[in-house]
């Protein structure tokens, strides 16, 4: 079995975010980077499947981005990936989900992957489109937002998270692509011996020019911080009245009391 895991390196969400000079992305000078959280679930699930199948599947890790992306790739290799493909692209942030997915699909087409894992979305752009577009371009089955995964004899049973806390179960025949959601598993820590082993694993390097040259379908016009709002709504008056008003607001605006 050949498995592909697509990962992205994203800013640590505790960083300080400021728009860059072009106002189309963040100023990366202030940012620390790490592997996209949902992609960690994807890597972990791939490694668990490899373990379930006695180590037979080969796991390829793919990531698109500048030189620093190698740090996320090495982490995925230390978690249990076998080899990696780094698509070196300093202007990755200007590409829309269609272009990113087209690059991945153009690489994956000739490789004959049986199963592709991606995160449900990236923590920075959050489009949640790349995985499904890749599946569509490759013409394979796809299930999104997995919170449960099992594999038996060529069939995946995918537990999906739907709206309002409802769960769904989908069965997919290989080849297939699944996107991974919080709750699917607990990603392992890369151990020191595995970090050492990862140093010896192959990281092939490709350029965007060697892959798809699709034009963008959506362009980012601007990014900006939201205007500062006032300090929210302060309830006043006698305590009973405050409670009634709070109950009313919770019923009307949220799902917590339904």
């Amino acid at each position, binding site marked *: 079995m050949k498995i592909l895991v697509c990962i992205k390196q994203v800013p640590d969400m505790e960083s300080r975010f400021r728009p860059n000079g072009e106002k189309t992305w963040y100023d990366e000078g202030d940012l620390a980077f*790490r592997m996209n959280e949902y992609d960690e679930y994807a890597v972990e699930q791939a490694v668990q499947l490899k373990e379930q199948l006695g180590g037979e599947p080969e796991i390829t890790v793919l990531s698109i981005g500048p030189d*620093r992306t*190698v*740090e996320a790739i*090495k*982490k995925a290799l*230390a978690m249990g990936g076998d080899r990696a493909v780094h698509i070196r692209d300093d202007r990755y942030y200007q590409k829309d989900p269609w272009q990113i997915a087209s690059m991945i699909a153009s690489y994956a087409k000739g490789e004959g992957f049986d199963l592709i894992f991606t995160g449900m979305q990236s923590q920075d752009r959050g489009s949640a489109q790349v995985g499904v577009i890749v599946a569509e371009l490759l013409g394979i089955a796809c299930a999104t937002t997995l919170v449960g995964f099992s594999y038996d004899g060529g069939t995946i049973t995918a537990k999906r998270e739907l709206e309002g806390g409802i769960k769904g179960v989908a069965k997919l025949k290989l080849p297939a692509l699944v996107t991974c959601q919080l709750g699917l598993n607990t990603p392992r*820590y*890369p*151990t*020191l*011996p*595995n*970090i*050492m082993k*990862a*140093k010896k694993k192959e990281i092939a390097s490709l350029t965007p020019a060697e892959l798809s040259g699709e034009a963008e379908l959506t362009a980012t016009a601007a990014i900006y911080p939201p205007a500062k709002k006032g300090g929210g709504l302060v309830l006043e008056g006698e305590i009973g009245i405050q409670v009634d008003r709070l109950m009313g607001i919770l019923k009307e605006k949220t799902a917590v009391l339904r």
Partner: protein
Amino acid sequence: MDFELSQDHKVLRDSVREFVEKEIKPIAMKIDEEHMIPDSLVNKMAEMGFLGSYFPEEYDGAGLDMLSYAIVVEEVSKACGSSGVLISAHTSLACGPIYTFGTEAQKKKWLPALNTGKVIGCFLLTEPDAGSDAGAISTTYRREGDEFVINGSKIFITNGGYRGTGVLFATSDKSLKHRGVSAFIIDLNSPGVEILKNENKLGIRGSYTTAFALDGVRIPAENLLGQEGQGFKIAMDTLNGGRIGIASQALGIAEGAFERALAYSKERKQFDHPICELQAVQFKLADMYTRIETSKLMTYKAACLKDAKKNYTAESAMCKMLASEAATYVTKEAIQIHGGYGFICDYEVERMFRDAKITEIYEGTNEVQRVVISKMLLS
């Protein structure tokens, strides 16, 4: 000259940090209160490879380098100084001399269990009357057939309470001073090894500091480490490397306290403003951070020199001295920034303040470090 960590070291640092955040930070206060690092944590650290970071894979080490080891001890110590010194004493002081001075047979016999944390290592040099004057030890050994027989006592043995594998120093004749000292590998479960007590201490309370009585302990002759009479050299060489571990521990303690002080200074409001807007606090933060960064540079430099197999004696003494003095300074100022809250246990900086002090004392007091540095200048 490039002061950036390599991508591999960054991956390592981030992985260790993630582990520490989830597995150690939440229980650091409990470790201090209960004077005990839970076995479950020791096992998890062993699984992570923290107990054999820079030894080759053929002895079940992780095969990384000294800089990686320094980063591991630093990151662990940011949350828990006790756990940091467990790793440091085990790695530098027990695995280190066996790897450096052991025969191939000794390495194959002892290192795999140590590197994988199946047993915890310690270093038995200090005695009631031999601290900085390590050549004055009075624990004796004599040869009897295929064995050495050891008599004496040892105190202040970090990790001693685990009764694992020790590197023990004893003399054939006290009048020979340091020339009479030899080193042995000892299984601390051997008959005649008695734990007198585990000390109650100001800081690093989760770490064992053990006193042993050694009464007619028989060690197989094959456990002699190096040559007879080479023990003092082995001890000094070992402490040389160990200082990088202690510097990393001190650095981590300082960074842990600094992170908390910086965050608190932004949250705490007095006179309607966060206290970080007061220049009195800003100057403290600047002084704390400068001492941390200076210590880090010297610690990483010493580690890189050791990795490059260059002389690092002065640098390891300097980094140990700088980082330990940074740790006592930074933790003290971190309490001051926290005000009264810093003095109570809930804010953790008081624990870090207590943990910091020992780093100025063990693996060579800072006075001894100054002797080492000036010797290098004047020799």
